[in-house]
């Protein structure tokens, strides 16, 4: 070979959720190929849901992920209730939103403090960071605990909640238990505000993404557990039309499908949510965002850590709002008799939009299931971002360029387990 040829391999890229690999090919100083390879074995959830009862999808799909089980439950029950023509509102809907707030707080606190912040402060991991930033890491752990407390109080346990069911909850929490929860959440609001102030002081490389952004929008609130699908380019449609706009396709290098929006690469997640719904944030979250220097939109993936922190403020304040108006629902669930047909559900998982579609037979057996997780949708955008990172850093030594790529990937908090686990990174220079 006449070209300069060099290969670099990092045995494991840490601090992402799941297992995957990144392969970068540089030939004659040009980036030829960037592939985010998700090689985690396919898990066949969509296949083994077929033939199961419509009531089982919430519990089965929650097992897809230990970080965002509520997201899976929410999109599943929404789709099933849509298929069966049942609309669940009032205090049951409020409890569902409260549960989801717990997942956002817990997941975001984990990513901000334990996985992402070390990149900005120049530490290899949170352990090294904790030696110099002990108070900050303690704050992050308190926030995560507060999120877990919501999940435990409302959902019965922090991972894979057990009190949830189609139509609502097996048992609604007592008002007194939510009052006690609120006592824990008031200090968490201070911790959340301190988090925004802390991360806003980090240094952010200049980078503006031009991908389209896709997130839920809901009048009167920052969309979490439901809403219309909206894009930064002006599209707006209900969940049932998502299949008309979002197309999944296979790529040879990944066990996760990739998705396009009307043929274009797009991004879901905190940047999309913030850009589409920043006007719907609570006053506390809006003030924190403004103080952190965020405008009405944010397209810099490095600043996603600030957006996540703002979303934690929102989730804590929203949880407190819901608890203040809580009146235990009785009954704690709505009856959802099976109806033959197709139902669609979409919600905002911490990492982005999560869509479920089910077709049911008259007895409520699942005939087909489609699950589109956020990381599949974001994979092409992450690859496009990495291409620019590599192109801009070709003069860097391999280890420095590798570190920059790892950092770019963590900006997106990808959950590879959801999409199809560690990341092996290889740069080939030819």
């Amino acid at each position, binding site marked *: 070979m006449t070209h300069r040829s060099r290969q670099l391999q990092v*045995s*494991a*890229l*840490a*601090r*992402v*959720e*799941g*297992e995957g690999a990144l392969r970068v090919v540089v030939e004659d100083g040009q980036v030829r190929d960037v592939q985010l390879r998700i090689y985690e074995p396919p898990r066949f959830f969509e296949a083994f849901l077929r033939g199961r009862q419509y009531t089982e999808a919430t519990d089965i799909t929650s*097992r897809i992920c*230990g*970080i965002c089980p509520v997201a899976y439950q929410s999109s599943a029950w929404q789709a099933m209730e849509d298929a069966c023509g049942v609309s669940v509102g009032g205090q049951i809907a409020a409890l569902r939103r409260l549960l989801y707030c717990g997942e956002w707080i817990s997941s975001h606190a*984990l990513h901000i403090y*334990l*996985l992402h912040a070390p990149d900005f402060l120049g530490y*290899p*991991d*949170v*352990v*090294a960071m*904790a*030696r110099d930033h*002990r108070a900050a*890491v*303690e704050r992050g*752990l308190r926030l*995560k*605990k507060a999120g*877990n407390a919501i999940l435990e109080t409302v959902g019965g346990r*922090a*991972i894979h909640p057990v009190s949830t069911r189609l139509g609502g909850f097996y048992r609604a929490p007592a008002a007194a238990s939510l009052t006690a929860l609120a006592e824990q959440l008031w200090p968490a609001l201070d911790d959340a505000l301190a988090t925004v102030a802390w991360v806003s002081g980090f240094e952010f490389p200049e980078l503006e993404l031009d991908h389209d952004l896709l997130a839920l929008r809901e009048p009167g609130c920052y969309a979490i557990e439901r809403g219309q699908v909206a894009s930064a380019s002006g599209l707006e449609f209900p969940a049932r039309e998502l299949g008309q706009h979002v197309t999944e396709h296979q790529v040879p290098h990944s066990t996760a499908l990739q998705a396009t929006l009307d043929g274009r690469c797009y991004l879901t997640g905190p940047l999309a949510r913030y850009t589409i719904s920043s006007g719907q944030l609570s006053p506390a979250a809006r003030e924190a965002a403004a103080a952190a220097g965020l405008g009405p939109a944010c397209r810099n993936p490095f600043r996603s850590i600030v957006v996540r922190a703002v979303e934690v403020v929102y989730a804590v304040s929203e949880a407190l709002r819901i608890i203040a108006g809580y009146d235990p629902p009785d009954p704690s669930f709505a009856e959802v008799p099976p109806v033959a047909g197709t139902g669609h559900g979409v919600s905002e998982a911490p990492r982005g939009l999560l869509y479920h579609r089910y077709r049911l037979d008259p007895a409520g057996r699942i005939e087909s299931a489609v699950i589109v997780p956020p990381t599949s949708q974001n994979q092409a955008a992450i690859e496009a971002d990495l291409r620019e990172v590599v192109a801009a850093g070709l003069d860097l030594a391999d280890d420095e360029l590798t570190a920059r790529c790892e950092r770019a990937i963590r900006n997106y908090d990808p959950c590879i*387990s959801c999409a199809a*686990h*560690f*990341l092996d990174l290889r740069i080939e220079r030819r």
Partner: protein
Amino acid sequence: MSAPRAVVIGIGNPYRRDDGIGPALIAALRPSCPAGVTLAVSDGEPSHLLELWDQAPLAVVADAVLCEPPAPGRLHRSSALPGRPAAAGSTHGLGVPDAIRLAQALDRGPRQLVVLAVEAADLGTGPGLSPAVAASLPRLVRAVLDEVQRVRPDPRRR
């Protein structure tokens, strides 16, 4: 009521075959749990572990491990703390060794930590332990009871 003298943490996923040895241990201990011993199941998520063992006089952590060459069911005991970052292998970004190091950095570890690791044969999907690992469970239970019986309650603790 005296403060707990020990916490026993069974780490693992009962739906990943031998990774379920931690939860199986806790289930086996529950009917006859010694006084002053707290039992907990964990997926190994660091903030949860820090919460469980924070300042405990003794934490016994049971988990499954893969070894080369393998001897499924063999029990390993370690009270040594990890000296260097572990290779990423957890789907949660941080593993149990990272949790131990983080606890040290934050001074939120147990006063004494014992890790009992059982060599796994099968970490595939589905419930149920392999015969070799299932056969090791009574030995693991005895080993845990031996550990907790050596530790007395700490009178300074609330």
